[in-house]
Structures are given as C-alpha cells and as structure tokens.
C-alpha cells in the first residue's frame, strides 16, 4: 500500500510564484516523501517540497515493485527463483533479470571480484552457521538475445543472489522514470539514486548502526560547478543487521568470495558516494569485505566521489575527497 506523506497543515505559507522560487530556489532541498514496502525493506521516493506533482512518484513506486517482484529470491514465482530452481545449465531469462545479472557482472569487474552474485549457497549456509564445501567453478556467461533478454550459461550448482545489486539497479532505473523532476531521490532500503538541481543540495544523514537515534555525519549532496541537474548514488552496506549466531560463532550476509565465509574485516559499515546507486552499492559492499586499508585503495582506484567508513574500533574515516560533501566542521585530518 502506497502511503504518500500527508500533512494537516500547509508546510509553507501561501506565496506567489516568484516568492516561492525565491524561497526554494537555492540551498538545501526540503523533501516530500512517498513510501511503500518492497524488496524486504522500505522503498521511498523523495521529491522537492515545492514540486506539486504527486501522481508520478506513486506510479514510479508501483513500477519498482513490479521489477522487484521479478528479482527477489524470496518468492518462488520470481524470475530469479525460477532461474535458481532450473536444473539446466543454459537458461533464457527475461530483460529485467538479464539487466540485473549484467549489473552484477559489472560490479564484480569494478571491485576486483569482491562483489559476487553467485554466492547464494554460501550465504544460506552462513545463515545456518555452516559453510559451503567449495567455491570452485562458480562461472557463468551472459549472451544477449533480442528484446533485452539473455541466455545464461553456468557451471553446475551456480545459484544467483542479487541482493544489493538489484536494489541499486532498480533505484537507478526508477530515477530515470522521474526525469521531469530536477531534484529527486529513489531510496531502495538505503541505496539511493539521486538527482539534484544546480545550486541545490540534498542533505542525507548516515545512520549510526550502533545507535539509530543518532547519525555518523550528514552529507550535502550537490555539485557547485554544475549548470544543470546532476546524478549521484549514495549507498550503505554493513554487517550489523543481517547477522546470525550459532554456537557462539557470529556470521553475517556479506560473503567474502575468497573464503566463502562471512567477511572478517575491520569495517562495520561503509557508505559510498558515486555517480550511480549501482556503483555506490557495489563499492560499499566491497569496502566492508576488503577492510579499511584495501577499501580506501579500491575507492581511489574506482574513482568514488567520497565515502564514510565506520571501523570496528569506532573510528569514522573518510577519503580526502569526501570533504566537499561533509556538513559542519566536526572533522579533523589524520
């Protein structure tokens, strides 16, 4: 059920068109939000408060839900579940799933293989406190067909888990549907595709996983040098939420493809700023798996726009290029 945010009062005084433009023309954007449940979490579309169009975000939410229904592994009727249940090594998939699998392949290339969409069995084993016997032979290929579909050729036993790759992809696609909005955010459970008008900024808080009542910091997402709308992606990944404990051993959902086990690193949570939600999501996950040292190197190599990294010792680190997005002066160079 889609629930548009409603207010009993007008959030701003009635003003003429020019006065409204002066009020909202520059600076931080005050959001109007439309939310629903999707992909096992929340799905929210934010548009600028002064943007009077209401119908478009609701249409977009419905469209995302239809896409998500094809990519979830929690429904036996989804395209992904059918692919995983198919015993064949060569399977034809429809365009939405084909696009998600291509995005997963690209994420693997950009992160040196740290993001891997073939680790479903390892993840399910981690949930039970077990481990998979072998990760060898987890190979697949994608051959495009007409009308956007694809033929998936895979080694025996390869099962796919799109996880955040699907959310990032859907956020980016959905933002494309909001092309008439010069400022908009599609937030798929923390993975955000962002468009911001010239001279404006979206203020986005990075939640503290240790205490959700406070934030690690606040980012101002904008591009002062832009003359038109600019797109960004902001995504957060971490090992604090999807965790399981069996016989005193803690595991979580971020599987290190080098070991087939839950990643052991000094990073608890990583938030990455990039040019798309897909890219930000892949890099955030890779930083958590790789650790802070290798993660900072990866971010620099991948050309990430910025990042906020919470380590297990409680330090909050950010690459130097994050400085332009950090609000307030609560920071020091180290």
């Amino acid at each position, binding site marked *: 059920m889609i629930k548009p945010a409603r207010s009993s009062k007008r959030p701003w005084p009635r003003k003429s068109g020019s006065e409204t433009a002066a009020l909202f023309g520059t600076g*931080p954007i*005050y*959001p109007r*939000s439309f939310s629903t449940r999707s992909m*096992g*979490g929340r799905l929210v579309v*934010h548009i600028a408060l002064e943007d009077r169009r209401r119908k478009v975000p609701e249409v977009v939410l419905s469209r995302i839900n239809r896409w998500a229904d094809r990519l979830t592994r929690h429904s036996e009727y989804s395209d992904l579940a059918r692919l995983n249940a198919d015993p064949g090594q060569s399977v034809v998939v429809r365009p939405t799933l084909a696009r998600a699998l291509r995005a997963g392949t690209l994420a693997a290339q950009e992160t040196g293989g740290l993001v891997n969409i073939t680790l479903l069995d390892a993840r399910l084993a981690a949930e039970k406190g077990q481990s998979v016997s072998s990760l060898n032979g987890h190979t697949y290929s994608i051959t495009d067909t007409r009308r956007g579909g694809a033929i998936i050729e895979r080694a025996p036993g390869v099962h796919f888990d799109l*996880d*955040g790759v699907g*959310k990032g992809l859907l956020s980016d696609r959905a933002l494309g549907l909001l092309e008439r909005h010069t400022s908009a*955010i599609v*937030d798929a*459970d*923390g*993975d*955000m595709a962002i468009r911001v008008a010239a001279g404006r900024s*979206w*203020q*986005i*808080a*990075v*939640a*503290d*996983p240790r205490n*959700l009542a*406070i*934030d*690690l*910091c*606040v980012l101002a997402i904008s591009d002062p040098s832009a003359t038109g709308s600019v797109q960004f992606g*902001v*995504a*957060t*990944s*971490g090992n*604090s*939420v*999807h965790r399981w404990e069996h016989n005193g051993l803690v595991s979580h959902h971020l599987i290190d493809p080098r070991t087939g086990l839950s990643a052991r690193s000094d990073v608890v*949570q990583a*938030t990455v700023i990039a040019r798309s939600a897909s890219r930000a999501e892949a890099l955030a996950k890779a930083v958590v798996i790789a650790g802070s*040292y290798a993660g*900072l*190197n990866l971010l*620099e190599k991948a050309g990430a726009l910025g990042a*906020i990294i919470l380590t297990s010792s409680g*330090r*909050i*680190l*950010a*690459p*130097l290029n*994050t*400085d332009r997005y*950090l609000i*307030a002066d*609560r*920071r*020091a*160079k*180290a």
Partner: protein
Amino acid sequence: MRFALGMGGLAISLTITRFIAVSAVGIAAPAQPAPAGATALTSVTRPVNYVALLPGQTAPPGATVIDATAPKPVIVVTQATAPPRSTVTIRTTQSGTVLP
C-alpha cells in the same frame, strides 16, 4: 582514390595542427601589459606524474617519494552527540534497518 583520400586527410591534419599552434601562441602572449606597480599573476598548472620505482631505482632530483605501502591520508570524522535534524529527514542505512 586512396591516394587522394590520404592526401586530403593529411591536409586536414596539417590545418588542425597549425590552428592549435597559433592558438597556443595567442594564449601565451599577454593581451595587455600589467599596470605599473602591480604584480603580474600567472596561473600555471603543473601535472603531477607518478612513477613506480623498481628495486634499485632512485627518484630524480626534486621528486617527492611516496611510500606505496603507507596508509592513505583520510579525514577522521568526529561524531556529534546531537546532530542537527531540523532539515534532514533522509537517512542512508544498511538494508533491513528498521528506523525508530
């Protein structure tokens, strides 16, 4: 035919090269002299080139040597105990987080 096309391409590339050379001269020459008593400011962009030194190699004079194994310089963010929430309503979280 091929010869004619080749000659045509050569002529075009020569023209472009000449245009670039003339433009560069035009940029280098100041349009107006600096006023008396004023300090002429010139903006110069120096490209920074990184060269990975192999074992036994030494850096050229004046070069800054960076230890490739040294940690990257970072910003350490100091967390606020009471962050401003007046304008911020959008938060990025790990997936599955239930916000209060």
